[in-house]
């Protein structure tokens, strides 16, 4: 399936910004299930300098300098992304303890590469793992296959946690979310990542978009789609299995991947440091449409 994504981020400043520097993670990366057929990044005011690169995780990122005084910044990314139907879940998988052990011993290139997502990270610090481990253990009975255990944990999380956009902020630590049992997709992804890492199973954060279906009989609303976050768990001899605890699904053609990292801090869509600006408001809109070109 091919999707056309339009993602607009706009910052409105109460005072003039004289200079700003930005680091963007907005252009969708290639994955085994996904190809980017075309993309563009439009920035207003026009940047004085722009550099595109690939980060250490293989994500596409863009460095931008704006030296023109401005009162608002508008970043628009457009992309045509082709997503393949998901591979069926592996019928069998290794016991979760053996995943932990193979990663710990660094046995095999695949396991060694997965270690990048096995340890403490800014939004999922090791200090929160004890609580996460306690929450996760009921799903991780001894010898349970890792895919089954991780999928069961996703279901439990979905059942136990309420979606509440006012309960948490970016600064709410994972153990606090665990206590509150509420939050948004970022929080749920971070919580499940903490659970898996606490047990020694590598997990990574995925940032992207979710295609939404309008209610029956209603037209699709512009800007109704959303940027979204989920996670992927390392399954030896299979690869990375995506899991969406917000919706209790295994992501497929409705999930478009932009970037992945250890947590949100590695893949923040728009970072910036501004000179001046006063207070600022942020406005975001995402639309995922059937691609006009295909």
């Amino acid at each position, binding site marked *: 399936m091919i999707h056309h994504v339009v993602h607009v981020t706009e910052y409105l400043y109460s005072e003039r910004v004289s200079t700003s520097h930005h680091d963007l993670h907005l252009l969708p990366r290639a994955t085994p299930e996904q190809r980017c057929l075309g993309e563009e990044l439009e920035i207003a005011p026009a940047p004085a300098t722009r550099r595109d690169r690939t980060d250490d995780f293989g994500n596409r990122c863009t460095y931008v300098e704006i030296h023109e005084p401005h009162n608002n910044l508008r970043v628009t990314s457009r992309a045509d992304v082709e997503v393949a139907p998901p591979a069926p879940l592996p019928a069998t998988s290794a016991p979760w303890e053996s995943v932990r052990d193979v990663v710990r011993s660094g046995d095999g290139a695949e396991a060694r590469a997965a270690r990048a997502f096995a340890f403490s990270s800014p939004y999922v610090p090791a200090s929160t793992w004890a609580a996460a481990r306690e929450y996760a253990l009921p799903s991780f009975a001894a010898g349970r296959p890792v895919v089954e255990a991780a999928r069961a944990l996703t279901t439990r999380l979905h059942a136990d946690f309420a979606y509440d*956009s006012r309960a948490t902020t970016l600064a709410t630590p994972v153990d606090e979310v665990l206590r509150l049992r509420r939050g948004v997709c970022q929080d749920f992804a971070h919580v499940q990542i903490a659970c898996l890492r606490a047990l020694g199973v590598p997990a990574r954060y995925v940032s992207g978009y979710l295609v939404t279906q309008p209610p029956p009989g209603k037209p699709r609303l512009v800007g109704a789609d959303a940027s*979204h976050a989920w996670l992927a768990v390392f399954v030896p001899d299979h690869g990375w299995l995506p899991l969406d605890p917000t919706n209790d699904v295994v992501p497929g053609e409705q999930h478009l991947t932009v970037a992945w990292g250890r947590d949100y801090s590695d893949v923040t869509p728009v970072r910036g440091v501004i000179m001046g600006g006063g207070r600022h408001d942020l406005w975001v809109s995402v639309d995922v449409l059937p691609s006009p070109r295909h």
Partner: protein
Amino acid sequence: MPGTTLRAPALPDATSTASSTASSTASSALPASPPTPSLRAYAARATPFDELADEHGAVRAPWHAFAARFDALGPGELARRWTEARHLIHDNGVSFNVYGDAKGMERPWPLGPMPVIVGPDEFATVSKGLAQRARLYDALLADIYGPQRLLEENILPAELVLGHPGFLRPCRGVKPSGGRFLHLYAADLVRQSSGAWNVLVDRTQAPSGAGYALENRIIVSRLLPDEFRECHVERLAPYFQQVRRALAALAPHAKDNPRVVLLSPGPYNATYFEQSFLAQYLGYMLVEGADLTVRDGCVYLKTLGGLHRVDVILRRLNDDYCDPLELRADSALGVPGLLQAVRDGNVAVANSLGSGVVQTAALMPFLPGACRALLDEELALPAVETWWCGEPSVLAHVLATLSDMVIKPAFPTGRTEPVFCDELDAAALAELRAKVQALPSAYVAQRRATLSTTPTWDEGRLQPRRLLLRSFLVADPADGAGYRVMPGGLGVVAARDQRHDISIQRGAASLDTWVVADGPVSTLSLLRPAGAPVELSRGGGDLPSRVADNLYWLGRYAERADAMARLARTAVARLPDGAEPANSLVAALRAQARIAAPAEEEGAARDRFGEIGALIFDGETQGTLADTLRSVYRVARAIRDRLSSDTWRVITALDQEMRDAETWSGAVSTTGAVSALLDRTVALLAGLSGLVMDSMSRGHGWRFLDMGRRLERAVSLTLTIAATLTSAQPSETLVLESLLEAADSAITYRRRYLASLHAAAVLDLLLTDPTNPRSVVFQLGALLEHVVKLPHLPGRARDGIESAIAQGADTLLSRLEEVSVQRLAEVDADARRPALVAMMTELERELPALSDALTESYLNHATQARQLARLQRREEAR
């Protein structure tokens, strides 16, 4: 002697307050008749593993020459010289900052007079080992930020790198200019009972202490000049020359004259003194993050005259703080875009961004393997026995012998203190055990070691103290991947009573370290001759705006303090005259302090002396003389690298006067004592202004300082006249007299008008006389001269801002030139002077406006870089 382990000096890291040290005050009393200190006698009764004494109680060979000369010093001679040396430390302002101590956190640098002496053979052996460690860390960084071969081959545990917050992922794959990652390296060495030196701490982030080592050398070589000369002590200057060469060689695009800056975290950092001292010594500009900006992937210094390209950054800022865009978002100290500039190859940063990842004791057990894998060599200089608890087999061993261990964090963040398990009671030990068991990979254990002692001189007696030696290395571009070791270093000895920790933050003292040669040594020096004037500006517009701002405020605060001290002095002297002029003078003093008068109680007797005292000494209230002098000190400290040592001495003395007075408020309870203190303050401020006139080059820096001074003097005069003369007093003669005295114009007046006092004549002299350097007109004229010579602001219309400021000054000037002082002095039926009131009101409004225009156009640093909210909440449609 009990087994002892030392804490690293941890100059910038330790938390607690320093206890007082032997050298903390210059004035502490000496014993009445000090015994003759004898190193031979010390050797005879020395404890095992002493640096000076061998196991037979004889002086070791490298110390021979020194011991013979030292023992020949007469009784009391060392004491006398040491007193002088401590004055020197105080006067030069050699200091460090103590964290967690809000009030007066700057402390004098603790130094002991006895050097530690290292022989040539031993130095050569240790140097080889240190240079190998530096090469190893450089290769490790290249691997960690490159192919990660050691992780692929499981030679390093992955968690130590991938789980380390100091592993800066955005830096992976970035090739540093010149190819090297580690340019400066330091190691804290201890000598264990085996006689071998071992490394206790490796420093790869932004090593501090080399400047203090140099400062120690300057003081001790003056203290013991003959001993220093005769002992063939290796000089330190060639090392610093090497630092300059190494950093210049880093400049991208092989520039002839690269601009190197020292990036400092600012005046509140523990080692800020050292940073400003080193910047001055090495000839680099001392900058803070806000002084730099990244444009088109290049780093520029923001100056009055525009942007100047920066080629090399010697950073004393931890790497994660260096770029708030890609690294720590909460850093207010860094330069947004710096990492991209490095990535683009347009600037070199020493040490490279990310070098902090290997600064952890957790790596120590894996260094021998890493050394074989990366250098194909055996590790020559091992660390003290160290275990990383993240390995299950190791954890059991550590827990079994926990009470012999020193526990450190594996991933040090911020200021973390090692825990000495033998100091813990059973409950605390159990608590620590539980913490380690819960998250073993976060902890490192080091075996407590028995360390060597060295003689220190403490109140007339020679005492053995546990020794730690910090060595410094710098890259040697002429020697491939090699490094050079400073022939010397920073000796640090435990505070008295054999404490376990050796931390300057916790009361340890430092020693000069002498590496002695067999023959004569090269005697190069990079130091300016003492007392030489310091160039404040290089003539052009390369003065950072932040520095210009601080100079401007230094001028303003110094002048304000001067006006207040003079007014207070006059007021105190006039107290016996009764209600007037004292009331007018107190009102004028309040006006200077910007403090409103308290509501007067009808009929209550006023304690004028008490009021004046509060306006002078109350350091807690904003605007008082004590507070203003503190502001002088604060702004001066922020530009300390640009002030001559003489200037700094005056500023320190000013600060000290007021501190002493605050502490001993009982001692300044008489008018005589207060007058004496104010006399000294006025004299010191005059000294400051004299030094500025005499020793600052007439660049933009001087111009901003003088503009601050002129503007403040005009404001002060205005406020004083408004407070004293706008209403005619019955006993005005006394008011006029004291006003002239406070404005330092009494002699001029007397010469012109003999003894008769008239308000119009006084107003002429203080307001409109262009020849009196203390008149308002004179200040405005001087300001105008400065303004027309200011650099043109880049990106603005020529003659725009500059002429607006000039016009403002010019308008005021013509108003004063045209006004008739006779009219100003006229008194109406209510004994008011309406014309004077109008004039003063205008000046009180326009002068601050002039200052605002100046600071907004030239000095405005208020636009702090800020992080954009990263509020990308997913408003999930479900």
